[in-house]
């Protein structure tokens, strides 16, 4: 994908107000596909099936919320989607490649290139400033992305933190920190943004601000997969996937795309 496309996406997200009701259509092309994936590990002599024969496709422009009680396998699924873990059996196709059997080095590169991460506890690096935190994934791009610094500045503006570029994470509120994390998740122009309880540490008002931002990104064409256990947060996604005991219990459409 060329740089101009990336930039136009960002700008579109920046200027598009969160208009409810009319959503751009989800594309036909599948960006991430989980095919008959199982994940099992030994825990105190017992074989635990964290994921049991799960198959699910994620289309371009989709916004999926993964829900489920603790132990349902939603964290395991997110780790697999994030290429932080490999399935015991099954295939995971990301950007046209099967990443299930990749070695550690290649997986790292895949994460850096195709994925963006948003965490519950923001996970910013304390000794770095806002703009430096946004730039962290750029250090791991091979080949390097051109115009990195400008991208960081534009993304900081996009998430509304232009005035705090030099601040340290400790000098920011939780909502502001999460905005930095979102900008960071966008800097490498990922295929999929993975959000692990992005509003888990935030109050209701701030949660909705963050969700507005994610919503805007999705409208601009970003694919987002989000784990949450809060119903009102999940309601902001297009689809909700409910997991139970390592299996997909139900997939429901919240807001069908305008066709």
């Amino acid at each position, binding site marked *: 994908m060329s740089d101009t496309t990336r930039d136009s996406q960002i700008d579109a997200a920046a200027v598009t107000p969160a208009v409810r009701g009319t959503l751009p259509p989800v594309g036909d092309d599948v960006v991430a596909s989980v095919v008959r994936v199982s994940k099992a590990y030994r825990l105190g002599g017992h074989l635990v099936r964290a994921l049991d024969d799960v198959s699910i496709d994620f289309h371009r422009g989709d916004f999926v919320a993964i829900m489920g009680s603790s132990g349902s396998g939603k964290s395991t699924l997110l780790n697999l989607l994030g290429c*932080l873990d490999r399935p015991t059996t099954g295939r995971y196709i990301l950007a046209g490649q099967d990443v299930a059997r990749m070695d550690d080095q290649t997986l790292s590169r895949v994460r850096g290139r195709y994925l963006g*991460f948003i965490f519950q506890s923001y996970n910013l690096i304390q000794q*770095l400033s806002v703009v430096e935190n946004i730039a*962290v994934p750029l250090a*791991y791009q091979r080949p390097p992305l051109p115009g990195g610094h400008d991208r960081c500045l534009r993304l900081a503006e996009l998430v509304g933190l232009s005035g705090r570029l030099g601040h340290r994470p400790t000098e920011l509120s939780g909502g502001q920190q999460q905005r930095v994390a979102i900008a*960071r998740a966008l800097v490498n122009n990922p295929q999929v943004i993975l959000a692990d309880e992005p509003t888990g540490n935030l109050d209701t008002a701030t949660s909705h601000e963050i969700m507005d931002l994610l919503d805007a990104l999705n409208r601009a064409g970003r694919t987002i997969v989000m784990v949450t256990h809060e119903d009102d947060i999940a309601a902001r996604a297009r689809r909700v996937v409910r997991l139970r005991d390592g299996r997909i219990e139900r997939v429901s459409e919240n807001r069908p795309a305008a066709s």
Partner: protein
Amino acid sequence: MDVLQQIRLGFRSLMLHKLRSGLAVLGILIGVTAVIWLVAMGEGVSFQAQQQIKDLGATSIIIRSIKPADESTLDTNSRMGISYGLLRDDYDRLLSNVPTISRAVPMREISREVRHRDRAIDGQLIGCTPDYFALNRLPIARGRPLTEVDLRTYANVTVLAHEAAGTLFPIADPLGRAVQVGQEFYVVVGVAAPRTAAAAIGGSLGARQYDRDVYIPLSTFRTRIGDRVFTVRAGSTQLETVELSQITAVVDSMSDVDETANVVKSLLARYHKQVDYAVVVPKELLEQAETMRAMFNVLLVLIAGISLLVGGIGIMNIMLATVTERTREIGIRRALGATRTEIVQQFLWETVVLSGTGGLLGVLFGFLCGPTITAVRAAVAGGLPDVWAALPANIRNLEPRLAPWSVIAAFGISVGVGILFGIYPARRAASMDPIEALRHE
């Protein structure tokens, strides 16, 4: 990330714990400074020694009389006492039989009390020829040196060494006045300039001091003092007969020195029943000193290595703590695309910044070696004059000589130590499971 960014990042991360990083830097700093200082002082000492040996003359061969340890083999009878050492015949034989010897300077010395009125010193009475002054680089500060005429006329004249003159004549001008040795009086005709001690040569352990010498013509020595000397030792007196204390043979070129020395040895061996002499070749001393210096330097580097090793362990300790503390950061970076190699690199750069900073500061302090020693010396000389006077001349005159190789080596080793001791913590950081690392509190 380029090197500059890596170094900047490493520096920033280390600034998270200023005290801790500072202490680790201090460990390396002390190690590096110690290396540079030790080597500089060692070089200073060995330079001094070499200078002293060179003063003996690289083209000289020094032959000294030595009292053999086993006295029973000596030419002994109760009336004549013992007789040993170099003979005047040896001097003639050397000059006539060894063509490579261009000149030879004989000398006879003895410890004697030298007086002027109520003042006295335990001096070294030296009978010598005019050549002796040039040979030993003894410039005359005032008056004149001994001459051939003095030698021929058995003149009762003397040249005083600097300190001897100063002690005997604290105020008055010594020139033209007389000093007394035993029953004899000698007119002072010259005063030598001060001269530092020369290297120790065969038979005498200490460095040759010139400060209390009293020079008289060799011919005068022979007539006034004679070859026979009473020595009092362990309560009994002993009569010793020694014709010459030392002959310094000078060769024209350095390349002839070794061969000439061998010829001299075999010549002397033919006429001496026992080895009552020693042949010292300053050139060999110079080579020995060179070997000593190399060994000394190896020793210093070893000590330095140990101190840097300790510094390195300090660094490893810090980095292990850092890695544990920053587990979360490692997890974040791994999730955001960092490979294991990149994590290893990041933490290695951090240790290199740590040890490199210590190394640079150490080099900086290393350069302060000269001024510091000068300052300390001035402080001791000013504040504790008694202590100062009691110090050996070698220490009083020590000038540290900064060795460029030691600066480069010390800095290089410090950075090397950083890398070596950084590898384990860095690998530990990289081997973490990113999921576990992200969960770390």
